[in-house]
């Protein structure tokens, strides 16, 4: 607790593109310590003053010492890929104390398959019990109780360019939201609040499914009507799955829900979009995944969404179609036919 409220030092764990963007925004309101696991990344940032195409704010100091970061910072933003999140928390746990506030910016879920295996088998029903959000992992692995999450339509590249954007901080604790808002406030970055942390976390993940679908539509050279259909019907499916997992539906109509969905489905830069696009162009999924540098979260999310639908008895044609395309090699023509003719014909049926 070396810092005081008038000279706060914020911590960011993870120097990926979003972690870097978050560090730069925080630097407008205080000092920042940014943790990178690999020394080469630190060296390169220190040598060039840049990371992932973003110029670093001089108030951002680099470290690869988690202990010192935890000692110096009361408010910490973990932003690491979901696959590495638990491991990162386990390394940080000995240095985290009850006074810490953690606000993560990771969109992803961990699944603990009920049969005890490492990865979820396709087509097996799973319930909420088998799903861990990043905030669940923080609570499981550390003594930190005051947890929040940062989510919304936040394409790191645009934030880095200083374009206006908005985000949501969700937490059950008012004080977490308040401190998060103070930390991130900026003339170009608006921070909204929500108490439904589970909802916000789920919204940020489930939209990846629709990003793949959007890529497919693009690859098939379909027009705006089809895209609008995808976004609105897709949102309905996200709401149904989210509600089954304990989220409230309101959150899906806010920035972290529809906001993020529109940004994701409109952007042709994301990995998920690329997967969909290349599938539509006739490439094989295995080949696509082999040739991609980074993991496309959406492929796993489709499998999980399908499993959740099976457990909770949810009808979700878009999830179903994507599952068939990705895991059962169903063709595009057949898929489109199913989507256009399935028996769900009531609009906005997720309110029921």
């Amino acid at each position, binding site marked *: 607790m070396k810092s005081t409220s008038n000279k706060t030092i914020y911590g960011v764990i993870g120097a990926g593109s979003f972690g870097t963007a978050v560090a730069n925004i925080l630097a407008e309101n205080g000092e920042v310590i940014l943790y990178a696991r690999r020394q080469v990344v630190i060296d390169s940032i220190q040598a060039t003053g840049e990371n992932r195409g973003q110029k670093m704010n001089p108030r951002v100091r680099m470290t690869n010492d988690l202990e010192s970061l935890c000692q110096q910072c009361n408010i910490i933003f973990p932003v690491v890929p979901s696959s590495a999140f638990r491991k990162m928390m386990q390394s940080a746990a000995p240095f985290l*104390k009850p006074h810490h506030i953690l606000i993560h910016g990771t969109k992803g879920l961990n699944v603990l398959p009920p049969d005890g295996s490492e990865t979820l088998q396709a087509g097996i029903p799973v319930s909420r019990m088998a799903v861990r959000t990043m905030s669940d992992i923080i609570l499981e692995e550390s003594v930190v*109780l005051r947890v929040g999450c940062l989510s919304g339509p936040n394409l790191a590249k645009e934030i880095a360019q200083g374009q206006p954007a908005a985000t949501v901080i969700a937490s059950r*604790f008012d004080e977490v939201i308040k401190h998060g808002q103070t930390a991130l406030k900026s003339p170009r970055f608006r921070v909204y609040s929500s108490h439904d942390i589970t909802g916000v976390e789920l919204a940020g993940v489930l939209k990846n499914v629709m990003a793949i679908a959007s890529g497919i539509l693009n690859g098939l050279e379909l027009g705006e009507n089809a895209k609008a259909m995808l976004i609105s019907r897709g949102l309905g499916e996200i709401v149904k799955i989210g509600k089954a997992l304990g989220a409230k539906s309101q959150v899906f109509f806010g920035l972290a829900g529809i906001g993020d969905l529109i940004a994701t489905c409109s952007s042709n830069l994301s990995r998920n979009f690329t997967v969909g696009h290349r599938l539509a162009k006739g490439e094989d999924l295995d080949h696509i995944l082999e040739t991609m540098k980074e993991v496309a979260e959406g492929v796993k999310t489709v499998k999980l969404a399908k499993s959740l639908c099976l457990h909770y008895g949810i009808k979700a044609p878009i999830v179903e179609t994507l599952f068939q395309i990705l895991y059962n090699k169903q063709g595009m023509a057949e898929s489109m036919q199913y989507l256009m003719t399935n028996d769900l014909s009531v609009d906005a049926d997720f309110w029921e």
Partner: protein
Amino acid sequence: MAYILKKGSHRLYEPVLPNIEDWPISKLTEEKKHFLEELISNSGEHVKALLNNDPQLMHEEIARTLYKERIRMKTNPWRVDGDMQPHEKVFWNKVKKSIVENSLQKAKGEHLEQEHEIFYSIIERYANEIMGNFSPKTYMQVSGVITAAFRRLLNPYALPGKAKKNKLRDRVRLTGPLEKIRSLAEQGTVLLVPTHFSNLDSVLIGWSLDALGMPAFLYGAGLNLFDSRVFGYYMNRLGAYKVDRRKKSSLYIETLKMYSRMTLERGCHSLFFPGGTRARSGQLESRLKLGLLGTAIDAQRLLYKRGLVQNMGGAIDKGRKIFVVPLVINYHFVLEASSLIEEHLRRSGKEQYYILKDEFPTMKKLTEFSLKLFNSKSEIILSYGDPMDVFGYKVDEQGTSLDKNGRPVDISSYFITNGEFVKDTQRDTEYTRMLGEHIIKQYYEKNTVLSSHLAAFVAFNMLLLRYKKRLDLYGVLRLGKEDRIIPYQQFAQVMERLREEIRTMSERGEIKLASHMYGDIDRLIKHGMDNLNAYHSKKPLIKTKEGDISTEDMNLLYYYHNRLKGYELEKHI
């Protein structure tokens, strides 16, 4: 005269604090006058702050309280209501009169001080009603009487002095980390949070705490229990404070909460039933009343704050700690089972008008129950849970909180934000919710499966499964006699399967098994049936002439089956 307790035939352990006059609860009674003044002043300040110190809001709150009290007096009067002086009708008439006068004078802006007077007089009345006494003399007497009575009931044929073979401790079993709980009672304040199935719970818990050599606990007893003059007399002297669930005004509720917070802060070991009332359905509590529980978080925060001030900002983990101990009481049969389940069904059946009936059982009924209990060789298991701090961390013998990896946790800094010790009601409400979840988790883990629970669970679910497609729950409860028969072999098979499943669960620490649960399945079924049937005139589980399983009372079977609900065991039927 000094009141010194000794280890004896019924007190299994050396008393933690042998001299009763050293007990925090004795000291509280000694300083009652001063404590009451402080309670009234703190409650008043607190409610005023909730009302933003706005005279208009205060006026409305007093009027609202009066309105609620008048309805209560009219619709739901109890004998005990007349005990306090001045009589409540006189008191509330006075309040009414001054409210009317004030309203007339309101335009002149002169009423403020008078309203303060009424405001505090209401709180004073509530505070006086809530607070009980503690008399070492009565405690010594009752502890002796109850033990003697229990011993007699246990073994009615034994000659005095020869009761050793059939000790109460064999019949009422205490399990759990008892030594640790005793040790923590010396170092901090213990808050016991038991499940609540019967009005007998408090008697049993009182006996068990005495047997453990623990000092007496402050305990919130329903005001209705004071309706019985004999019980009222004793409870008033044994540390019980009165809780009246009919009184819903925020003035009453805040005074009650303040009382609880202040006694915990003073180090009085306390007991609440966090489920609120007895579980009507017979199921373990899965939703708790968080109001009183929140006072534990409040008290802990204030204790740390005081520690912080005393240490001038140095090490702050010095404040006295509050240790929460869940307790699950396992009965083979429950005194009030019939009326509880009836009330539950009427409520869940959406019957709109029911009258809250909550009378204490008559002496006749109690004696009958106790005789049957002890003659049936039935045992009652009190499973004490693992002591934890108010954040749900397990604590060691010294009271140090430990995380899941065994690392010490300084919980005082949960009240610190960005380097400063702050009061934050919303944050503490969240902490309370989390504490509630930890308590419920332990209820399920420490629940001890008895033969009777399992037999009822299996029988009811087999019937439910058989008629699932045609009937809803209420339909199954109305099944005719001839439709309630379960072939014995099938029943025994399912019993075996479920016992195996529960055994696996118990190895994972998700539930507990009573020691009689092992061995031959036929013997276990008989054990379960004998115990279930020992008390009720209509038997929950019977063997037909043909040797099959049936029931004389579907509602009771449903009630006892509920005890194992919530574990997803149904899928193994």
